């Protein structure tokens, strides 16, 4: 079954990218990956994904900067952002809660729960 939605996965940890990619592809999503925020931003601009799953703490450009930036970009085209992090402080929760269409998921994460969240957003059974 093919779902016509493109999902971008940004994480500096190759294992995380890999797991999410397999999980989502098995369900039928189209998946692109990036190793840091800067690469991710390029893909967001060029390929216009329907959802973005990003880590926060990354070398290069971190997830927070990316989210704040894409929150502005989203005015043109809304998409779901799932922010994943191993370390969550009240300040981080605070800025995440203020963003539009943005959810938060704590690491270590469950790939199936992540898939559930994406399915729910797109109304996929």
């Amino acid at each position, binding site marked *: 079954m093919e779902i016509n939605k493109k999902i971008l996965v940004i994480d*500096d*940890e190759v*294992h995380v990218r890999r797991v999410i990619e397999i*999980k989502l592809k098995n369900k039928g999503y189209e998946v692109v990956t990036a190793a840091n925020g800067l690469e991710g931003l390029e893909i967001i601009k060029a390929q216009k994904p329907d959802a973005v799953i990003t880590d926060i703490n990354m070398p290069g450009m971190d997830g927070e900067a990316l989210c704040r930036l894409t929150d502005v970009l989203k005015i043109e085209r809304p998409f779901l952002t799932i922010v994943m992090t191993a*370390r969550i402080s009240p300040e981080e929760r605070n800025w995440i809660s203020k963003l539009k269409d943005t959810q938060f998921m704590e690491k270590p*994460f469950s790939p*199936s729960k992540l898939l559930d969240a994406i399915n729910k957003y797109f109304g996929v059974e």
Partner: protein
Amino acid sequence: MKLPKITLAIIILCIVSMILLSRYLVKQEERKIISAVQEKGINLVNLLSLYPLMDYKPDKRTLFLQSLTSYQGLLYLLVHDKSGTVVVNLTPGDILKSIPPEIQTNSIYASGVISQNFTLKNPQATVYEFAKPIFKNGQKDGTIRLGLKIPAISAFSLERMSFLAMVAFFILSAVLLVYYGITLAIKPLRMRQQVIFQAEEKNPPAGKKPAKGDNLIPMIEELESSLGFMHTKLNEMRLTNIELYSKVGVMSFEKNQFIRILDAINLGIIITDMHNNIRNINEYTLKLLSRKREDVVDHPLEEVFPQEEIISFVMQQETLEHQGNMNYRDVSFKSFAPNDVFRITLTQFAGAEGTPLGKVITLRNVTTVKMVQKAQQEFIAHVAHELRTPLTNIKSYSEMLMDQEVESVEMQKEFYNTINQETARLSDLIQNLMKLASMEMGGLTINKGLLRTDWLVAGTLAAVEASARDKHITIEKSLPDVFISIMADKELLISAIINVLGNAVKYTPEGGKITFAIFEQDNNVVIEITDTGYGLAPEEIPHIFEKFYRSRNPKVAQQAGSGLGLSIAQEIVQLHGGDIEVQSKLGEGSRFTIKIPREDYLLGNQ
């Protein structure tokens, strides 16, 4: 005629001394009343300034203050707002007009309790004015002023007259007693005189010597005994004097000791009275303020700490007294120590009867404590992050396998492999953390023994050979002909070298070269590990021994690592009294130099 003259003199003396005494008593009472009025005024103005008068509704405020005007001797009561306008005026008649204007100016611009006096012409009286600023949230919100009249003192009060009469009676009695005493005392002398006269009259030339002796002996005995009594009394007094002197000496010594102790304490201490005037201040605080003791003692706190948060804290604590919680505040002094954080505490202290006497303010420099706290928090956050990374991989990979998301057997094998690797990474990390913690707490026991350096070569190279072979990295050895022995903990030193050598293998691309050298230099055994790896940027070099520091170089960052290895290696080398250094060039490689001194061995050999 003789006797009346003396009596007259005594009477005149009595009258003069009565007058002097009564004048003295009147003055004394006046002084007592003034000091009582001052105390009353200061207490009253202090008490009133604690009420949030400015927040009351005007009618309620006036009513509240009117209940106080019945206070004996209260002449007037004025409340000014912060602009100086009178908002409450409880003043009978035209007294307000008779107050000299400079008194009002002084009161309104006072920063603490102020007391001043002036003479009122109609009705004739001395008036003491007390004023205190009203504070709200540490800001001056207004001024409260009150005037107290000194009650008139009559020189002929009934008490004083009866007291004077009593004194006169005592003086008269004393004079009479002394007179009687003198007569008694000279009686034996007179008798002797009489006897001598009588004897001389009977036998003018040859005196009756035995009779003379008969009279003299008891007299001399009497005199001697009284002399002896006086002598013992004198001795007793001398002893009490010595005792008193030594007590005074001990007291002043103790006082000086107390001041010296205050000065020796590594803590700022300021002691104030009830009106926030500085009574005592220790050396630490003076140094902090860079001021002299005499410029500070007896000055108001507000003057010494202008516009500092300490004042608002002290004011707040005054009103919040006995609430108990949060009795400290961390502040920094913008004007003299802007980079340091001080913890201020305030304690009220009281006299024997529980009457408050003043406050003890302490200032403790908590800058380093705060820094350590922050570093600890950062460390814990970092550890949590580092532990979660392998855990995340283990959890997600195992869940994928359980959910049968991976079909190909090849890939399944890869997944199991990753889980295995990540578990090893986690256990490595935990081991490193334990090692680090035991070293930080000083709990790591270092078992030094005679160690031949060739053992270091075998023990360390074996650990990295496999991974070096996988990456086709050649390891060249440059070893001395004769191996030097050092005093060292074999296991610890080997693990430190493995950490450095392991990094060299990990961060050197395929086909690279590593040189492992041991030699002696300036009484040190030097272990040098040189690689042709990715190298370090100059700005990274100062940080590589920091805990959890990992290079931002993507080639390095993509390799698994805890960022603890070099930090542990450095700790171990330093435990041996040695040193670890790095030279590196980005894109060319790095050279780590470990130096272990030989002194211990030489000493052990002697």
